[in-house]
């Protein structure tokens, strides 16, 4: 009777989703406000910025470099038919600054740092470390969750700027020395079509939102995980999948709101 179970199961899942969303939102607000708690330490925050940011830097730069080079190649073959290769610089820069930079940074961040964050918090829960903290009157939101959440919000925009820059440099390396596009035109066209507030800052605002959403989902999945070995594994998988889908969906909404 697997099919007949499907209908009530669907109803239960929908009914479970709504209070879960509420609990996740309460979790987010408690963690963000926990910055003011006396157990929040800057040293913990710096440690997380190091873990999330500095140690993802090489990965981001390599990914950005290849993304930029591919953009240069594909853009060239699309534009050369119309004799419009002078627009290649604009194409590479706008694609990276507006979409690929923030989205790819967030997706890589979800895989690299988000998964580790979920695994860490859920195994702390499984080994009852979070309960032990509460027993010692240490607020686990201030000591564990808040530094990670704020580190994510700080780190993703910085990684995104570096991603954009390395990507544009990769695109330049393919376009100008390899494919023979004029270097002056490449930069001049880019400069006359890219605006600082309209393209660069809005791209970074996107990255900021993605940083918040990815770390929120990762921390919440860890916090809400079943306190078993299997639960830790499930939570990690769900964290990466949910965070990636959330980034892509949110990107659509932000693009519709910001670039109209």
């Amino acid at each position, binding site marked *: 009777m697997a099919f007949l179970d499907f209908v009530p199961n669907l109803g239960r899942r929908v009914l479970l989703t709504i209070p879960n969303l509420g609990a996740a939102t309460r979790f987010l607000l408690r963690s963000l406000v926990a910055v003011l708690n006396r157990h929040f330490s800057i040293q913990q925050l710096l440690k997380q910025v190091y873990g999330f*940011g500095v140690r993802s830097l090489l990965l981001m730069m390599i990914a950005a470099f290849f993304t930029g080079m591919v953009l240069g190649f594909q853009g060239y073959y699309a534009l050369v038919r119309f004799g419009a290769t002078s627009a290649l610089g604009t194409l590479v820069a706008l694609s990276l600054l507006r979409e690929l930079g923030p989205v790819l940074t967030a997706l890589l961040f979800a895989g690299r740092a988000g998964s580790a964050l979920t695994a860490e918090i859920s195994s702390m829960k499984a080994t009852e470390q979070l309960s032990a903290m509460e027993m010692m009157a240490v607020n686990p939101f201030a000591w564990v969750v808040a530094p990670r959440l704020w580190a994510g919000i700080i780190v993703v925009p*910085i990684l995104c*700027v570096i991603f954009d820059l390395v990507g544009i440099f990769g695109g330049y390396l393919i376009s100008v020395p390899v494919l023979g596009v004029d270097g*002056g035109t490449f930069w*001049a066209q880019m*400069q*006359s079509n890219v*605006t*600082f507030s309209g393209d*660069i800052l809005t791209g970074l605002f996107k990255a900021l939102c993605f940083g918040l959403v990815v770390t929120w989902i990762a921390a919440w999945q860890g916090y809400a995980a079943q306190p078993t070995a299997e639960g830790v594994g499930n939570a990690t998988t769900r964290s990466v999948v949910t965070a990636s889908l959330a980034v892509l969906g949110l990107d659509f909404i932000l693009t519709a709101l910001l670039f109209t």
Partner: protein
Amino acid sequence: MEKRAIDWWVGIFVLLGIAALVVLALRVGNLSGFAYNDGYVLHADFSNVGSLKVRSPVRLGGVTIGEVTHIGMNPKTFMANVTMRIEPKVKLPMDTGASIYTAGLLGEQYVAIQPGGMPQNLKPGSTITMTQSAVNLDQLIGQMVFNKASGSK
């Protein structure tokens, strides 16, 4: 890992981010241009500059030798006044001409320099008088259609 080492790495990371933002703002966005700051300035009057923009390239024989730094209007002659900054090593003769061309059919517009043959060079700040304006594609098509129509009568 030791506390101090983490502080250092995080500091370097944040500085790297700020540096990347500054480079993006200056080199990719158009907050300011520092490409040809050491060149000398020339002016040229055109009756029509088309869609020439500030920072469009100035080329001689296809090679970029400078960029447009300002486009203004001369209220007495109703001519568009284009200010260009030229690389210092390029010395142009007095009878040099300037035209506005388009790179490709849909490409950007640029100033093309045709060097003359006089022994004296243009001094910094002087004006090129022999100019040819931008070709207005709409006008050309309009003329062609009009000629066709009147010719078929």
